[in-house]
């Protein structure tokens, strides 16, 4: 049954992919991309990657779609017919695809428990994590503790991307209340948005602080938190949202999250451990790991949420 769902979802993904190639309306393509993301999120659940599925659903189907729609609104909806014949690109794609498929023939089968990918570190993470870290969700313990350096780097990349978007699109600290006249009349939309807003934030907090025990963590929580505010901004206008959470505050928060993360690393150095070695943070090593993970996940959550909102504000406050 699981395999059947897997195969059907992959088939649907392929159909959506071809539809994206053929469709000329960019707004339609954006909607199809959203469907594509939602389908891949469902596929991730089937493939046991629940944490990844949460992230993909919130990011791909949520925020990425909003950003693409904003870009289409700022540019144009029609795609011109290309001047060149598609023969050469088609040939290149076919040749590359054939070479890649030839390459897969040597790979272990899908789901093979003896595949090299599942030996060595992966095995030791699964065995040692409950003893060394004491956190049931191994994805969280690998993300926040074993590979803490990596994650710090990635949070910094996200922060840099926000700086890049700010540099490109500028920043309007006191945006006019940009609001399509149509949405004011959409009573159902506004009421539902108002009802959902606190629930989404509550869910984000749950995902943030329950990430040690179930699927979740700073990345997912940050994104879900941001979608709550984006929904609010969509229904009530950018100005209202900016009164709730001003742009200047977001800029400080985005930096603060990265700083919290790095500060935890420095603190563990000051206490005699290595950079990001959480077990020295408390008397008991396990308690230290818990404290360290909680703090850095908080830093990640704050940065991710504010970066997503900064990017959203940047796109939406831009006018033609």
């Amino acid at each position, binding site marked *: 049954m699981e395999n059947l769902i897997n195969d059907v979802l992959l088939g649907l993904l392929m159909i959506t992919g071809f539809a994206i190639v053929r469709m000329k309306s960019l707004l339609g393509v954006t909607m199809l991309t959203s469907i594509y993301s939602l389908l891949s999120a469902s596929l991730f659940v089937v493939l*046991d990657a629940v944490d990844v599925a949460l992230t993909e659903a919130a990011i791909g189907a949520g925020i990425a779609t909003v*950003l693409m729609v904003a870009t289409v609104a700022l540019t144009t909806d029609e795609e011109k017919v290309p001047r060149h014949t598609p023969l050469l690109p088609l040939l290149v794609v076919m040749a590359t695809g054939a070479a890649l498929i030839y390459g*897969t023939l040597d790979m272990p089968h899908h789901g093979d428990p003896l595949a090299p990918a599942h030996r060595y570190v992966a095995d030791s993470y699964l065995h040692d994590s409950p003893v060394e870290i004491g956190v*049931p969700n191994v994805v969280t313990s690998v993300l926040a503790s074993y590979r803490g350096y990596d994650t710090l780097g990635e949070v910094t990349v996200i922060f840099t991307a926000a700086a890049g978007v700010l540099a490109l699109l500028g920043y309007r600290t006191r945006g006019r209340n940009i609001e399509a006249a149509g949405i004011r009349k959409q009573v159902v939309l506004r009421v539902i948005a108002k009802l959902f807003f606190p629930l989404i934030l509550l869910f984000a907090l749950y995902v943030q602080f329950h990430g040690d025990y179930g699927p979740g963590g700073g990345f997912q929580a940050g994104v879900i938190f941001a979608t709550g505010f984006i929904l609010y901004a969509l229904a009530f206008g950018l100005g209202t949202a900016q009164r709730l959470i001003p742009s200047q505050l977001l800029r400080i928060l985005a930096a603060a999250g990265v700083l919290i993360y790095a500060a935890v690393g420095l603190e563990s150095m000051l206490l005699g451990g290595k950079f990001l070695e959480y077990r020295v943070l408390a008397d008991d090593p396990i308690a230290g790991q818990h404290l360290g993970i909680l703090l850095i996940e908080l830093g990640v959550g704050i940065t991710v949420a504010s970066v997503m909102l900064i990017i959203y504000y940047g796109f939406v406050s831009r006018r033609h």
Partner: protein
Amino acid sequence: MSELLGHYNYWIVIVLMMTGFYIVIARPNLIKKVIGLFIFQTSVFIFFISIAKVEGGTAPIIEEGISVYSNPLPHVLILTAIVVGLATTALGLALVVRIREAYGTINEDDIHVQDEER
């Protein structure tokens, strides 16, 4: 039969990847190109998560009475890659917006024509 279907996931991933690749090289529209990259990127995510799957395993959240888990490491890599991927996509879209403001078009062919005229 299972010999043939053992790589099914990987082959579909390659088809998706090539779909994205085709959009990037064949379509002159810049938004479409960014979407092509997005599809390409998602196909790589599916590839990693497919590798992580262990037959009969479950999500890597340690629980009494369960002994087979899927591999958590690719999950971690892809989880962060998704967020970073959105950040870079946003940067790409911001560039598209600026290009539109500078050239008045987001069609690559038209942009080349304008560049040559200068």
